[in-house]
């Protein structure tokens, strides 16, 4: 059952990204990624991280993609030029990505052999993560809020329309 779920979710994930690559319209590209990221959140859930799964769905599939769609709406869309013009470049990109994939799998091969020890009961519960975040990782957690504040102010100042004199 879990195996079936894994294959279903990974197919949804990979399919969404392929849809992003193949669609010519930026809005469709962003919309294709929403189910993809949501499926990734479900995969996190399968790996025993309910908190991370919920964060992924709310922040990535929700907030970040909505932000992207807003910007897509503010920029008039022109369909990208069709592929034939850059067929050689397309092929080269695919070959390069395939080489990278081979490299990643080769370097993972040591980890692939180790068998997973059964996770302890209740691994990755929300309480455990919260305790970890507010004890050992308290400083990074507080600094993250500063990062978000800086990003908020920076984005506002960057995107603000200059008053023309």
């Amino acid at each position, binding site marked *: 059952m879990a195996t079936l779920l894994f294959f279903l979710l990974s197919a949804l994930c*990979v399919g969404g990204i392929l849809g992003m690559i193949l669609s010519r319209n930026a809005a469709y590209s962003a919309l294709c*990624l929403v189910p993809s990221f949501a499926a990734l959140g479900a*995969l996190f859930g399968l790996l025993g991280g309910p908190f991370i799964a919920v964060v992924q769905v709310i922040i990535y599939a929700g907030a970040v993609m909505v932000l992207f769609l807003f910007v897509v709406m503010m920029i008039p869309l022109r369909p990208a030029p069709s592929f034939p013009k850059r067929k050689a470049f397309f092929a080269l990109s695919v070959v*390069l990505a395939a080489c990278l994939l081979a490299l990643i799998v080769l370097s993972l091969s040591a980890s692939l052999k180790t068998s997973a020890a059964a996770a302890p009961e209740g691994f990755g519960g929300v309480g455990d993560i919260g305790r970890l975040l507010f004890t050992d990782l308290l400083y990074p957690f507080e600094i993250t809020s500063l990062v978000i504040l800086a990003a908020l102010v920076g984005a506002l100042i960057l995107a603000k329309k200059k008053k023309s004199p």
Partner: protein
Amino acid sequence: MIPVSWFLVLSGVLFALGVAAFLIKKDLLVMFLAVEVMLNAANLAFVAFARLHGLLEGQAAVFFIITVAAAEAAVGLAIILLVFRRKKTVKADDISVLKG
């Protein structure tokens, strides 16, 4: 019980797809989306290794990555918007003012 190695391979596949999308696409917005895909692939590897070693720190790292990625998306999109206002285009090929 699904082997954790499958998740690692899936993470590699997602990262390679993100790289391919980044190279193929010519639109700044979609290239930025491809970067998000790569970040998510790295997140999947983090969670998979956290499961493999039974450590919660991997999931905490993913939490931090997600928050920083959200901040990065806000700033990056503001910069793309600014580029569009200046140059009236978001195609990476048309933005070559830094080229001498």
